[in-house]
């Protein structure tokens, strides 16, 4: 329990923890202290002077006893100068006056000063209606201006200074509160905005290249107290009071970011954060903010397509669903249910996934059900319910094989907060450098594939500290002794001396030792691991977690939105069934005839592009349920138009298992005739699956999404991890990279130009051209300079990309984003080998391409014949 102090604010007493700011204490008892520069998530600076108040402290007698008035109340000595309440810490007995005539005059003065050079272009200002300056002027300013006759002296500054693809700056409106610069410095840890010049010429500017290069830059728009920083996507599009802010959850990444989607006339106007201290605080990433524009794109599918004579043609829902039903029935009768495969995707809602699993698992009866094309690991236990609170309270955090900056934005900010503000000891282990290394106390850049050796080495050192440090012995002994597999596990660690482990992992032995010391001494260890590591690595981590008694603090990071939820809903192979990879194989071999793909794309996500393509060509019947026509729908026999998460109610699960409600923002996109009559519309996945089940003879009886939600919630709850130890041995990769080749590493990129990017105007512009990171020393040997065009060639194929030189990768390795627009690494990766060896060849230089190839924009479907709409948006008839 922290020390408490009691302060009196405007004659109300309030008790707060020692060290709290007076402005926080005032807010607690409902006293509104006006402010501009103060923001609860940022450091207090006391710049705007709006929150000035009168502060007094109890007087002390010379003998250090409180001086009392005659009536026994303490005498208060008021400070000679007013104090900013946003920087004054509450102290016992403090008296604060925030509404005296003097204070009122001070506020008037600050507002008068701020307005002296403010353009007052509120009628055309995006911030109008939610502007702090506007509100506080109404509340506290004098009714008249004393500077009218100096109007001609107002500063004439940039009105549309483009800071980045997302943000534009109106310098006349800026009140120099430094909220934006502090956010980027302290929270995002991307110091890309800076105050420049001084005095009344002070303004903000960016020095970074590309400008304002932060994945969180959009938050500066929200925290700007005036309309200085505005969104280029939202600019001049609407007044804020004309939009309806619908609370929902972003299904862009696995964070489960809480957002408001502002809509007007069924059009997406903007996306703003929704405070949730348990998930995203008040921040969202730029991808959440600018990545939902696809909803309104004309290329959205609004009616089913059916292949007739080799060509996809518009069809009615009845026709399409009947066709799918017939084909499934036929395949089942002729070859059994095993000839049918269904693969969902992490973009399905919990309800969509559950209805899909029930449809194919129970109604169709096939064991071949999965949620993706590559095997992934899942969190072995139940992550702590207060995940971020625990994470911020952790003293040592080990991150392995993940790059939150490109994968999980909310987590990235929390890790930054933990490392920067809470001084957690962050150990970042990755085969290549990531932005997290800037904050990590230790970054262990290991050899790809040597995770087991590294972790066994760590575990051995931690276990050895058992005898070295008597204080920890007891705790460790309790964690290990009598546990399943403990003895065998300890024996198995024998060969992993720190020297050998460090050598195998390619890191320095002192680094390994330092990491082990930190882990051994930690009380609140947290382990985070990327979803792409092998199950063996996960077991090794489980051992380490169990050794420290932190089994439930090992969490797998899933970059995709509902990765946890779809698996929990049952999108996983049943007994004897094939997984995604196996289904592609079986389809190619002719064993699987019908392939049903919902919210997924094997050409993007499968490990082997060629296999996916051949399988799709071989399959007898392919159903694709999707938002847009794309590469995949070219192989489809039936295309069903699905609704996005913004067009349906439901729930989604984020990477640490938190289930949150989605709320419908828009009616499912529709096609209308000239008179405005709805002809057809896309439909939420759960409706499509429920309807298909009906047609296949099984009526679930569910007419509302809530029915499915109930079913989802009735699934068995996650149980805490069972503590046991599994010996894992490191098997060194026998393959040695041939001379002159490089080991190809891959990873995720946030702006990967993926499926919805072409339909998001702003976001699409920041997608980089395909590139490969090459170690500077390697590049020098090969004569490759920065941004040169190179050919990356493996035994399977070659791609042409730009070289980016740096120290992100170790010598002997190169790194490519796994999915980046046209260049798919799964075209060259060798799936059956431990790793892919590539050669680099410099090509004749061509200037870097700036724009998106025209063919990336999907061409909209032609007018076609009007079709009947037989599937409603919310209720199954």
């Amino acid at each position, binding site marked *: 329990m922290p020390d408490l102090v009691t302060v009196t604010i405007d004659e109300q007493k309030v008790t707060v923890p020692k060290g709290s700011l007076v402005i926080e204490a005032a807010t607690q008892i409902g006293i509104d202290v006006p402010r501009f520069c103060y923001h609860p998530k940022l450091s*207090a600076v*006391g710049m705007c002077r709006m929150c000035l108040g009168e502060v007094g402290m109890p007087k002390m007698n010379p003998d250090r006893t409180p001086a009392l008035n005659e009536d026994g109340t303490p005498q208060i000595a008021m400070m000679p100068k007013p104090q900013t309440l946003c*920087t004054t810490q509450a102290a016992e007995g403090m008296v604060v006056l925030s509404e005296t005539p003097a204070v009122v005059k001070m506020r008037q*003065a600050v507002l008068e000063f701020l307005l002296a050079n403010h353009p007052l272009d509120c009628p055309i200002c995006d911030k109008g209606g939610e502007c702090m300056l506007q509100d506080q002027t109404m509340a506290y300013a004098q009714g008249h201006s*004393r500077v009218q006759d*100096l109007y001609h002296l107002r500063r004439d500054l940039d009105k549309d200074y483009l800071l980045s693809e997302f943000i534009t700056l109106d310098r006349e409106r800026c009140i*120099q509160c430094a909220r934006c610069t502090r956010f980027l410095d302290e929270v995002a840890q991307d110091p890309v905005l800076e105050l420049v010049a001084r*005095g*009344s010429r002070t303004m903000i500017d960016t020095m970074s290249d590309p400008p304002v290069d932060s994945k969180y830059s959009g938050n500066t728009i929200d925290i700007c107290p005036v309309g200085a920083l505005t969104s280029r996507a939202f600019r001049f599009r609407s007044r804020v009071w004309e939009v309806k802010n619908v609370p929902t959850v972003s299904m862009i990444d696995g964070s489960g970011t809480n957002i408001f989607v502002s809509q007007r006339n069924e059009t997406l106007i903007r996306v703003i954060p929704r405070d949730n201290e348990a998930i995203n605080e008040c921040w969202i990433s730029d991808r959440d903010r600018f990545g939902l524009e696809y909803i309104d794109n004309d290329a959205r599918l609004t009616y089913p397509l059916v292949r007739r004579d080799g060509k996809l043609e518009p069809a009615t829902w009845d026709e399409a669903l009947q066709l799918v039903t017939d084909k499934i029935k036929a395949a089942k009768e002729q070859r059994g249910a095993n000839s049918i495969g269904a693969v969902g995707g992490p973009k399905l809602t919990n309800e969509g996934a559950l209805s899909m699993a029930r449809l194919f698992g129970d109604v169709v009866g096939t064991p071949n059900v999965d949620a993706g094309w590559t095997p992934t690991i899942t969190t072995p236990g139940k992550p702590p319910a207060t995940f971020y609170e625990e994470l911020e309270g952790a003293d040592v955090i080990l991150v392995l094989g993940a790059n939150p900056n490109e994968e999980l934005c909310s987590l990235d900010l929390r890790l930054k907060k933990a490392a920067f503000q809470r001084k957690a000891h962050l150990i970042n282990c990755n085969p290549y450098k990531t932005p997290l290394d800037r904050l990590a106390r230790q970054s262990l850049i290991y050899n790809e594939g040597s995770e087991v050796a590294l972790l066994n080495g760590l575990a051995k050192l931690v276990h050895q500290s058992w005898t070295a440090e008597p204080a920890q012995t007891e705790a460790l002994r309790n964690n290990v002794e009598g546990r399943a597999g403990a003895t065998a596990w300890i024996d198995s660690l024998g060969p992993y001396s720190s020297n050998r482990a460090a050598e195998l992992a390619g890191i320095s032995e002192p680094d390994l030792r330092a990491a082990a010391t930190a882990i051994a001494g930690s009380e609140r260890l947290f382990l985070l691991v990327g979803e792409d590591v092998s199950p063996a690595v996960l077991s090794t981590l489980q051992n380490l977690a169990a050794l420290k008694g932190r089994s439930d603090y090992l969490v797998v990071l899933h970059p995709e939105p509902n990765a946890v939820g779809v698996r929990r809903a049952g999108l996983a192979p049943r007994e004897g069934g094939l997984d995604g990879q196996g289904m592609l194989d079986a389809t190619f071999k002719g064993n699987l005839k019908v392939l049903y793909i919902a919210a997924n794309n094997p050409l993007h996500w499968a490990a082997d592009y060629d296999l996916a393509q051949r399988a799709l060509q071989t399959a007898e019947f392919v159903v694709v349920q999707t938002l847009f026509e794309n590469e995949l729908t070219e192989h489809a026999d039936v295309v069903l138009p699905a609704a996005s998460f913004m067009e349906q109610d439901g729930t989604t699960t984020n990477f640490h298992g938190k289930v949150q409600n989605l709320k419908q923002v828009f009616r499912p996109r529709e096609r209308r005739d000239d008179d405005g009559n709805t002809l057809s519309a896309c439909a939420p996945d759960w409706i499509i699956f429920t309807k298909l089940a009906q047609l296949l003879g099984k009526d679930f009886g569910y007419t509302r999404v809530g029915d499915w939600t109930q079913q989802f919630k009735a699934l068995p709850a996650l149980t805490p991890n069972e503590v046991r130890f599994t010996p894992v041995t490191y098997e060194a990769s026998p393959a040695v990279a041939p001379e002159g080749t490089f080991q190809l590493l891959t990873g995720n990129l946030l702006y990967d130009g993926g499926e919805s990017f072409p339909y998001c105007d702003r976001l699409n512009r920041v997608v980089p051209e395909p590139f490969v990171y090459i170690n500077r020393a390697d590049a020098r040997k090969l004569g490759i300079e920065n941004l040169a065009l190179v050919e990356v060639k493996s035994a399977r194929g070659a791609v042409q990309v730009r070289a980016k030189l740096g120290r992100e990768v170790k010598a002997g390795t190169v790194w490519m984003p796994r999915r980046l627009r046209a260049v798919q690494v799964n075209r060259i990766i060798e799936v059956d080998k431990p790793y892919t060896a590539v050669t680099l060849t410099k090509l004749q230089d061509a200037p870097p391409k700036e724009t998106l190839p025209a063919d990336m924009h999907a061409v909209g479907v032609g007018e076609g014949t009007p079709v009947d709409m037989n599937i409603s948006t919310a209720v199954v008839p």
Partner: protein
Amino acid sequence: MAYEDEPKIIHQHINVPDIKKIDVYEAHDGYQAWRKALSEMSGDDVLNEVKASGLAGRGGAWFPTGMKWSFMPKPVFPKYLVCNCDESEPGTFSNREIVIKHPHILLEGFMLGCYAIGCNHGYIYVRGEFMQGYATLRRALAEARARGYVGKNVLGSGFDLEITLHVGAGAYICGEETALLSSLEGDRGQPRLKPPFPAVEGLYAKPTSVNNVETLSNVPFIIGQGAAAFRQWGTEKAPGMKIVSVSGHVNKPGNYEVPVGTSIRKILEEYAGGVLGGKGIKVFFPGGSSTPMLTPDKLDTPLDPQSITAAGSILGTAGLCIFDEDVDVVKVTHRLLRFYKHESCGKCTPCREGNDWLVAILNRLAQGRGKDGDADLLVDMATNIAGRSFCLLGDAAATPVLSSIKNFREDYEKHITNPIEEKVFIPLTSGNGH
């Protein structure tokens, strides 16, 4: 007694030719105090001697130096001593003369200060525009290093001392100690929140003491001759001497080192040769442009912090600016406000926007196109700045406005229709010496 024959502390040898060279300085007892301290005294002895001398900060705050040094937490390392050589107050030029003519006395005092607080790496922050001073200091530091006064194991005492010179980018605000520290760290020169005070978290978040050039230059004398010798001059509350920078309409402008408590009239008439052309005085600043103006009836005030405060102003840096009876107070204020507007760092609203606005109104008065009530408007604006700004720059800017309107409101009324006469020349700084 003529000024030249009076006893002095810092200025004792300042006019000896080539005293800026280390040989000449050593020939005049230079670095004896430093040798004495290293061989005979501990750091605490030096600190106690300074404490006993009652030396107070000559940068304007008059805070006891010994006390400031004793606030530094003992067990924290490293800690820093920073010399504030960013003298930029209009009307104040005493540090400038010390640095240019007599750099070694500053260096010696600085070394003693480092020794007293146990600092192994000190910084001298030199004002951006003061390149001559920087060059002189650099030469002097190189000489001192060559003689072993700075470096590892100074004079075999086991005490390591490194001194770094740093040049700012030219900003008045960097004379404010926290802004100076920000600038020294490479950030924008803007004041920081206090608390934490520099003695707790200063340079690089370590305990730091920031001291003025003149303060440190007094230390060699205190250590060499003892605290009692220092206390023979000055008042009980502010012992020692103060270099008074006299400028404006006087016959002999310049720096005069006089015992604290000498009357202003004596300095003006005996040392500075009286007002130019034998005219009367309209107004004067006792302590640089940031201090409230005083009228000639206060000329007999003793120049010590307490008496000047009692007279309604502040002693500050003792930059005595004299304005004769023909001076136009509005023009003086206008000129000063343009300075403060230019130097406002822009961090807080009142100073950033308020100074801009004050200048706009003074501009129109200067052009003889004022409005009725402008004086009241100025007073109200200045009141809204004073005491509300982040640091004292805002107060400094409001002061000339408030004090000039208080004393000479009729001048402002006059300028509502009459423009300022441009021919009046107001020198605010003098050349070097006498």
